């Protein structure tokens, strides 16, 4: 039997919804699990329970052969051999960068410790700032120091709480790619809390959607975004088409991507690898009868309506354009267009509505 972490915990707070979390994580081969949910959904509390900083009321946490919590046992954070990265990094202001990274390496000799610190600093491209204090660093550098500190003592589980949320948007896109490569390279089982779909797609093998105090759906991020189990999940994740695509060319910020034989135009933020997820929010898809004529939308796709389902004032329309695509339109639009199953339509969206997210280099671990 492959090693696994199994979590099944309950925790209640006075005056708030009870939190119930049930999920698993493959440790060998090491997988990356995304805890996805809106703020206040309890995902950080789940992470704190995994870290031993918060005590669940009932249930258990088993990490391979170790029991971390089961009502009687509650292993200390120290005993769990973790690497934690906190939302605001929690770097020690009294220590230098090197001091922060070396902080948890007490078990090593002085030489071993020095070598390990140098190794980790090199891995995260932090050479040259070893002697600086955290306050002297940029946000991106602080983020890397926090990560360096977390991985320095070779943890058996990495816990990352909104690892990119404290960065500004342009930095975030770049660091997201770096983090993805790093997590792959490290091969440490990880749990990443986020409410950003780009992070979820880029980093995750598995994704657990948390809403209303409970785990609503578990699956690969692509699966969850494309096929939310029910309206509750759809409300949490938004309706998103996430497709595997290949970048054909990228000139002056405009990229040409191929998805299942169909060519799309997208804005590319940075140099982006050939393998990407192509994400299109259902709200950004405009439907028309026949050809849409000349518009400013760079993408016009011929397709067929395969599904129409009501979501209150809005209607979710499933299309087949050579690949599955979702559109969300108002009920009156459905009436005006007289949409029905099997009807040919043109779906258009601007290049700016087609988002590219770097895809993990390896096939996701099921």
């Amino acid at each position, binding site marked *: 039997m492959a090693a696994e972490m199994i979590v099944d915990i309950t925790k209640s707070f006075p005056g708030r919804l009870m939190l119930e979390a049930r999920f698993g994580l493959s440790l060998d081969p090491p997988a990356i699990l995304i805890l996805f949910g809106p703020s206040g959904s309890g995902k950080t509390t789940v992470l704190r329970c995994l*870290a031993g900083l918060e005590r669940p009321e009932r249930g258990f946490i088993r990490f391979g052969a170790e029991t971390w919590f089961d009502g009687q046992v509650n292993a200390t954070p120290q005993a769990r051999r*973790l690497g934690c990265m906190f939302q605001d990094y929690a770097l020690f202001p*009294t220590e230098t960068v090197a001091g922060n990274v070396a902080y948890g390496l007490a078990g090593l000799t002085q030489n071993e410790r020095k070598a390990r610190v140098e190794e980790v600093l090199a891995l995260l491209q932090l050479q040259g700032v070893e002697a600086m204090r955290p306050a002297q660093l940029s946000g991106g550098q602080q983020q890397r120091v926090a990560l360096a500190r977390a991985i320095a003592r070779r943890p058996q589980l990495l816990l990352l709480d909104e690892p990119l949320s404290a960065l500004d948007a342009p930095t975030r896109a770049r660091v997201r790619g770096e983090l993805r490569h790093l997590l792959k390279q490290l091969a440490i089982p990880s749990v990443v809390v986020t409410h950003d779909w780009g992070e979820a797609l880029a980093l995750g093998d598995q994704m657990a959607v948390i809403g209303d105090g409970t785990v609503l759906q578990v699956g690969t991020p692509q699966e969850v975004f494309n096929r939310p189990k029910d309206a509750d999940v759809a409300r949490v994740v938004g309706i998103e088409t996430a497709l595997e695509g290949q970048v054909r060319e990228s000139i002056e910020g405009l990229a040409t991507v191929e998805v299942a034989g169909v060519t799309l135009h997208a804005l590319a933020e940075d140099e982006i690898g050939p393998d990407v997820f192509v994400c299109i929010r259902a709200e950004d898809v405009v439907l028309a009868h026949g050809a849409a004529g000349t518009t400013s939308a760079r993408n016009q796709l011929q397709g067929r309506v395969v599904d129409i389902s009501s979501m209150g004032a809005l209607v979710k329309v499933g299309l087949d354009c050579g690949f599955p695509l979702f559109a969300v339109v108002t009920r009156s639009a459905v009436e005006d267009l007289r949409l029905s199953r099997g009807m040919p339509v043109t779906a258009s969206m601007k290049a700016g509505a087609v988002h590219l997210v770097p895809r993990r280099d390896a096939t996701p671990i099921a």
Partner: protein
Amino acid sequence: MNWIAIGVTFKLAALTALALVVIGLPIAYWVSFSRWRWKFLVESVVALPLVLPPTVLGFYILVAIGPHSPVGRLYTDLVGHPLPFTFEGLLIASILYSLPFAVQPFAAAFDQVDRRLIEASWTLGVSRIGTFVKLILPMSIAGVVTGFVLSFAHTLGEFGVVLMVGGNIEGVTRTVSIDIYDEVQALNYAGAAKTAVLLLVVSYVILLAVYAINRKVWAVWPQK
């Protein structure tokens, strides 16, 4: 000037302040980090010497360490002489009398340490004691120095407790403040003035140091 009394006073103040670092840090740690709902009971006991008349405190200490109490009898059996009216007895009384002047600045400094940093330290595998030594203490150093200096200064000016517990034994328990009182009783105002000026200057310099370290309002009462 009575150099013997000055020597006794500074020795007493230094030993009291040192003892309060050793005793006060664990108490302050507990006060700052405990989530026990009746914690305020202990906090109030620690703060009691701030409001209690020194004679009342001195009276109870005298009774507690006297030959009729279990503590006093144990001490007499072990050492061979009773505690009251000795330097050791005076030291114990001074430690109790200055307890809030050490514990409160310590606890106020611990309160300022971001709990997330402490949790980060724990998740890095560093024990609670290790976290205290490596993280909490360096981050609270201004508060620890303040507590040390204030308990030192407070012990320098002790009068009521010293008189009750220490008596007035030259070279053993006669401190500067009692010496000043004796000089005034003997109508030797010139002698009293010299010693008083010394105490005034030393106290002022100590407070200057405290304010320079903290650069903010008087830290004796933590603002929670």
